[in-house]
């Protein structure tokens, strides 16, 4: 097979989704955001929902998500994305509305909005990027930071007497009657990327068939914040994050 054969569109087996804008991403090499963005773009395209989708970007690294996905976006204040999504979905019930939030946004400052939105069973999808750290502000401790894990505000490692316990908010959300689908995925291998895509697709379909709130947590890496190489980060995540945040469906009704 020659190079010309390979770049011949007829032989393409893998392409960039049209909804993913062809611009350089600001995310660090190795960061999980890029993969999750691409999955969302693929799914919206496959579901043919570009003209019916409104995404809500949080405060955090993904505040610039609007630059990468060619759909309508609203940027919410820190933690309030689920409330913003509620306002949109209640007035536009035939649209696909999803929030894209980090752990600080969703599980610290926005805990009330997250829980009450899920408890009302708003027909939205919450994509929850859990990397156990505040990435954008420079690696501070998050509600999901593991015990012993170092961050710029827990330089000697998180301790329970000082900081309390890591918050497994996804487990909590699975207890609520308003959620229909709560799952925890990752995107560090080809197999997990495929599973994560299926999960997000299912969540989006739930949102369109008014089944309630769907939550897809993606256990993610923040190699810059963790001060590890991308590959070391993946290993560290498997070894340390997965025992605390085990992958799989927590609820599927």
């Amino acid at each position, binding site marked *: 097979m020659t190079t010309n054969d390979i770049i011949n569109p007829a032989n393409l087996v893998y392409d960039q989704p049209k909804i993913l804008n062809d611009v350089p991403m600001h995310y660090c090499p190795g960061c999980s955001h890029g993969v999750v963005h691409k999955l969302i773009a693929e799914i919206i395209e496959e579901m043919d929902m570009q003209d019916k989708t409104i995404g809500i970007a949080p405060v955090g690294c993904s505040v610039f998500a609007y630059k990468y996905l060619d759909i309508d976006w609203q940027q919410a204040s820190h933690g309030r994305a689920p409330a913003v999504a509620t306002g949109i979905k*209640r007035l536009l019930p035939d649209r696909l509305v999803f929030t894209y939030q980090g752990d600080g946004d969703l599980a610290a400052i926005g805990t009330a909005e997250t829980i009450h939105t899920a408890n009302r069973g708003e027909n939205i999808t919450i994509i929850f990027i859990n990397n156990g750290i505040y990435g954008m502000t420079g690696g501070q401790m998050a509600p999901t930071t593991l015990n012993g894990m170092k961050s710029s505000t827990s330089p000697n490692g998180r301790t329970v007497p000082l900081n309390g316990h890591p918050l497994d908010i996804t487990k909590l959300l699975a207890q609520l009657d308003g959620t229909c689908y709560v799952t925890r995925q990752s995107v560090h291998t080809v197999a997990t990327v495929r599973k994560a895509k299926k999960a997000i697709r299912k969540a989006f379909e739930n949102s369109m068939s008014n089944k309630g709130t769907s939550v897809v947590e993606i256990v993610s890496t923040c190699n810059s914040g963790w001060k590890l190489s991308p590959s070391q980060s993946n290993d560290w995540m498997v070894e340390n994050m997965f025992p605390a945040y085990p992958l799989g469906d927590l609820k599927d009704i």
Partner: protein
Amino acid sequence: MNDSKKQHNEEVRLMKGNEAIAHAAIRCGCDGYFGYPITPQSEIMETLMELEPWNTTGMVVLQAESEIASINMVYGAAGCGKKSMTSSSSPGVSLMQEGISYLAGAELPCVIVNVMRGGPGLGTIQPSQADYFQTVKGGGHGDYKMITLAPASVQEMADHTVLAFDLAFKYRTPTMVLADGVIGQMMEKVILPPYQPRMTEEQIIEICPWATLGKTANRKPNYITSLALLSEDMEKLNMRLQTRYREIEKNEVLYEEFSCQDANYLIVAFGTCARVCQKTVEMARADGIKVGLLRPITLFPFPTKAIGEYGRQTKGILTVEMNAGQMVEDVRLAVNGAVKVEFYGRMGGIVPSADEVLEVLKSKVIISTFE
């Protein structure tokens, strides 16, 4: 048929100011109300829930988990070009300030009602005007202004709800109806506004091309944000906002004059205080004192020019408020030292009486000008 419909629309009703807001919101084609209970304005959401407008006009009414959630639900709905509103009272409006700043920064139209109660802190549930600074001077972070309407009657609670939406959409800015506990709770007769249909999506696309309704093939994606990474871009947004505020100052000033034509003295008061001071003017005139009342209806834009002119024409001005002296600063700026401006205020939920104001007028304003 048309005549009977018209008659129905102009039917005189007796209701509370808060109830009038709820009725007016439904009638003017509001798409969504999001709120959280707090005295003395809970009747707004209670009335909406009782009227169930989702069965008639399709308006959504939702009780949120907090004022923070309410204002952010308003943000989401407003970002879709929908006529959305919330209401609260002072402590709740404090919680909304971040959201209001975001709404201003993202240039989103919406209506916020504040039925003020005494503060600071949890304060009292009695009426107050102590949120003037918070409303007119910013409240949230950053350089922004909110068009602020100050109703002084149940009729104006209804009328200002309609007007607030019109101004909010005209200037793409959050607009505040700043009432107080008296206006919210008292019952008066009111003629409710006529029914207007809610905007269709086609109308929204035409009027609000920026609205996030889903990216269609014929346009670029819309995004609602108040973020600019480059300070040059942020300054541009600020300049655009400031230009708009100057336009608002030029076009939208509203005030009412009462017995001002031959006045030697002027009282400036808004909302409930203006109702009290109207009585003071009548009493003073019975005593042979030529005093008039100027009632600012818009607090931003402030009737600076009109008050400035009275500053040159009168011998003394008294500003009366239910706070420690807030609007009086704007009155003093308006007259710019041309005449002495005195202040009288009651705080913590107390409404001044017409007698009290008359006494202050005589002892502080009239005596001082004879000296």
